[in-house]
């Protein structure tokens, strides 16, 4: 039983029946651009696109017969004739919808070789720092255009030019970087072929479900991990907050985690007594407790071990109690850490002088 108002395509997909489609994307409206989902419906003269035909009571649909198969092959061959199919070097290879369709539908090699191959050598738009747009691989399915309008609400791109020259373009055909594009990458996520491709792409070996660390919206996402590095992020379709959507920061902003500028060891200011680096090393080896007070010296930090750091902090905090001391927590830390930190301030430092940047 299919839902009322469902299209032939979604009803068939729900029932596990395969209908080939290139321009269909469940997140955006159907346009019926590619014509690969043509099906024959009993009582109707012409084949109809499954993605645009609403099911009716008692409707009899043929998803495959020799006539439909012939039509699909011709359509596919025409799409291929306009496609730069250098699959071996394409990062999309293996996940490409067009590849999958060729495997499913097949093509007539003899007829295909006689077609005029119109694949043009159009310039690749590499202006965006996160993804490239290669118009030579574009199949004009318009999923990116619909995504930009319906999901992102930006309308940075649309179809431009006519006939053979039809292509996806920004306003006035400017590079993406100079357009109103906000680099959210929603189009890139949905591109069925290798036309919109992330710049630094590595396949993750595992994924971890988590929550975005940027703004207060708290989008659900999966971090793709390879080794000990975050290589990609994708929105969590099941998240009640973002339903799979992400913004530029949430999708591409994770290099900071692996930044070489990250702090690794506790740092301490070099004090007068230990101003010479050698004496600091000495102190490290002996691990003798650092006594207070020391004179602060302008200048460098030295790395110390965690043991020393914890002991130093604990012993120096013990000198201050109540109103003399304050603690500032962080809106970037977890609930558990904030709970613990306010407990620490109230119990160990004996003061209510705790706050964070909520009012900033």
């Amino acid at each position: 039983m299919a839902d009322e108002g469902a299209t032939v395509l979604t009803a068939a997909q729900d029932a596990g029946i395969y209908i080939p489609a290139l321009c269909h994307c469940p997140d955006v409206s159907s346009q019926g651009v590619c014509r690969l989902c043509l099906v024959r419906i009993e009582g109707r003269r012409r084949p109809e696109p499954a993605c645009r035909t609403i099911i009716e009571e008692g409707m009899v649909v043929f998803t495959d017969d020799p006539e439909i198969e012939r039509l699909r092959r011709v359509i596919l061959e025409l799409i291929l004739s306009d496609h730069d199919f250098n699959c071996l070097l394409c990062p999309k290879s293996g996940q490409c919808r067009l590849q999958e369709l060729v495997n499913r539908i097949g093509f007539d090699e003899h007829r295909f070789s006689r077609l005029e191959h119109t694949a043009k050598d159009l310039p690749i738009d590499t202006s965006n720092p996160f993804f490239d747009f290669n118009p030579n691989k574009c199949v004009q399915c318009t999923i990116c255009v619909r995504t930009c309008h319906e999901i992102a609400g930006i309308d940075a791109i649309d179809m431009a030019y006519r006939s053979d020259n039809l292509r996806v373009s920004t306003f006035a055909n400017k590079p993406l970087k100079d357009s109103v594009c906000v680099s959210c990458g929603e189009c890139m996520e949905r591109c069925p072929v290798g036309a919109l491709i992330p710049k630094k792409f590595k396949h993750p070996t595992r994924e971890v479900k988590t929550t975005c660390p940027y703004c207060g919206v708290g989008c659900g996402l999966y971090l793709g991990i390879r080794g000990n590095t975050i290589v990609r992020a994708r929105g969590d379709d099941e998240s009640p907050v973002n339903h799979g959507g992400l913004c530029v920061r949430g999708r591409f902003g994770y290099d900071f985690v692996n930044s070489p500028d990250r702090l690794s060891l506790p740092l301490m200011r070099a004090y007068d007594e230990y101003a010479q680096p050698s004496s600091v090393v000495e102190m490290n080896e002996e691990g003798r407790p650092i006594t207070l007070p020391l004179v602060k010296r302008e200048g460098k930090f030295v790395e110390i071990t965690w043991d020393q750091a914890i002991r130093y902090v604990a012993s120096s905090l013990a000198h201050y109690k109540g109103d003399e001391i304050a603690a500032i927590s962080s809106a970037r830390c977890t609930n558990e850490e904030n709970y613990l930190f306010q407990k620490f301030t109230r119990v160990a430092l004996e003061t209510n002088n705790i706050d964070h940047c909520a009012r900033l």
Partner: protein
Amino acid sequence: MAGLAASFGSGAMTNSINEISEAACIFAIGTNTTANHPIIGRQVTRAVQKGARLIVADPRRIPLCRLADIWLRLRPGTDIALINGIMRVIIEENLMDTAFIEERCEDYEAFEASIMEHDLAAAEKITGVSAQDIVRAARMYGSIAPATILYTLGITEHSHGTDNVRALANLALLTGNIGRPSTGVNPLRGQNNVQGACDMGALPNVYTGYQEVENEEVRIKFERAWNCKLSPSNGLKMTEMFDAAHEGRIKALYLKGEDPVVTDADTTFIEKAISHLELFIVQDIFLTETARLADVVLPAASFAEKDGTFTNTERRVQRIRKAIEPRGNSRPDWMIICDIARSMGVEGFDFDNTQEIFEEMRVLTPSYSGINYERIEKSGIQWPCPDNEHPGTPYLYSERFNTSSGRAKFAPVSYRPSAETTSHEYPFILITRRSAFHYHAVMTHKAEGFDELRKEERIEIHPTDAATLEIQDGEVIKVSSRRGSVKAKANITEVVPAGVVCMTFNFAETRTNILTNRALDPVAKTPEFKVCAVKIEREESAYITKDYIRWGTGKS
């Protein structure tokens, strides 16, 4: 938050993110939603695509203005005059929800009298918005339901921020737009876990779940749970801490995961206050500008390297999970705190994992007590969630408000000028904001690509002002306030109105907050980031030299 808490009983987004796209009317004031909360911006876009009416109030021509039915370009800092004007029209044209006011609210009469004191002509004069537009906005918000209000720091970062929020709360109460789906007064919170940090009691006046420090019953409960004596008096707020440090009353400060030297107002003062400290401990993932001033810096682990929960702006408690090992020898904050506490000989810090901490917390926190790690494994739960069967609360106040009487309070508020107004010497108003491509000062700069999109500070200035000062687009100009000055390139644009300039605080090289004013809101103690008076000067010498050298050396 203090403003909402005073009107309704608790300070949090009243409704859910998903409800925004179902609203019939959206009033977005002081929020550049598409830049700072893009996913919520999409909800607004979707609502408009479905036919909702959108009213935008902002001095800058933000991207949302393109979708708006009405754009109210008010002068910076005049929000209360605008909102009161709107409410006057609603009362005069009898668009208010009288039944709701009688059943669910109190103190209405005094409020109505205060609104009637000022007429629309006064509002027009103060805000610069025509009376006609105020009437149109009032009719739209007052007659189309459900209507929702969205706001962010454009409302709160003023010396009268709490009053701004109360004015918005009055507006929602007046039209009965609260306690139902797709209505409410919704502060969109900026930091990922600012809601959670407040809920967890990282505040000087409350324990977890906003249980007051000064309430003896509550204090005894926590003293029993933590097995210690607790201070009965409220602590200092963050902005007061720096005053106290400056005066030598605070001698030691332990700070984690914040960068006040870049992001706080009047940073010169903050730096000076920090230099007076005897002991300054910073815990962060980067050596921030603030950490550079510390005595000890403890390296913390990032969000991807630890377990825990975040609470988002719609009160939804969600899991984060450890995806990779901490970089180098950095460690999760909770482990560091536990170690220090144990080393100090303090009891009650023996936790093996974050789940144990969460369990201890939820027993003490009524609004979180029904939430546990198993229940939020797949998707988060919105507090209040009092027991294990409770499904969570998508919108607040459907039955009663969290005040002692259960009724919401109308509060008369009136317009006060910003703490700093323009003068002959400082004729421009400076607004500060965040860039769509950056997040504060560190994270995105350490990620590749973002600097390509926006690599340096650009001061937005109106073409008329630029022409008067003979400033060229891209020229380096000097912006000075009474507290200091910074230099950056000019960006001549009509996004800002004449007389107003706008800068971000995303770039550590251009320390915008040297300029901003520490004038505090009397209740919330929020500094006035959004309005300060500045003057603009050309950096003539630099400009001319550059051209001259090119000519002289023949290398052009």
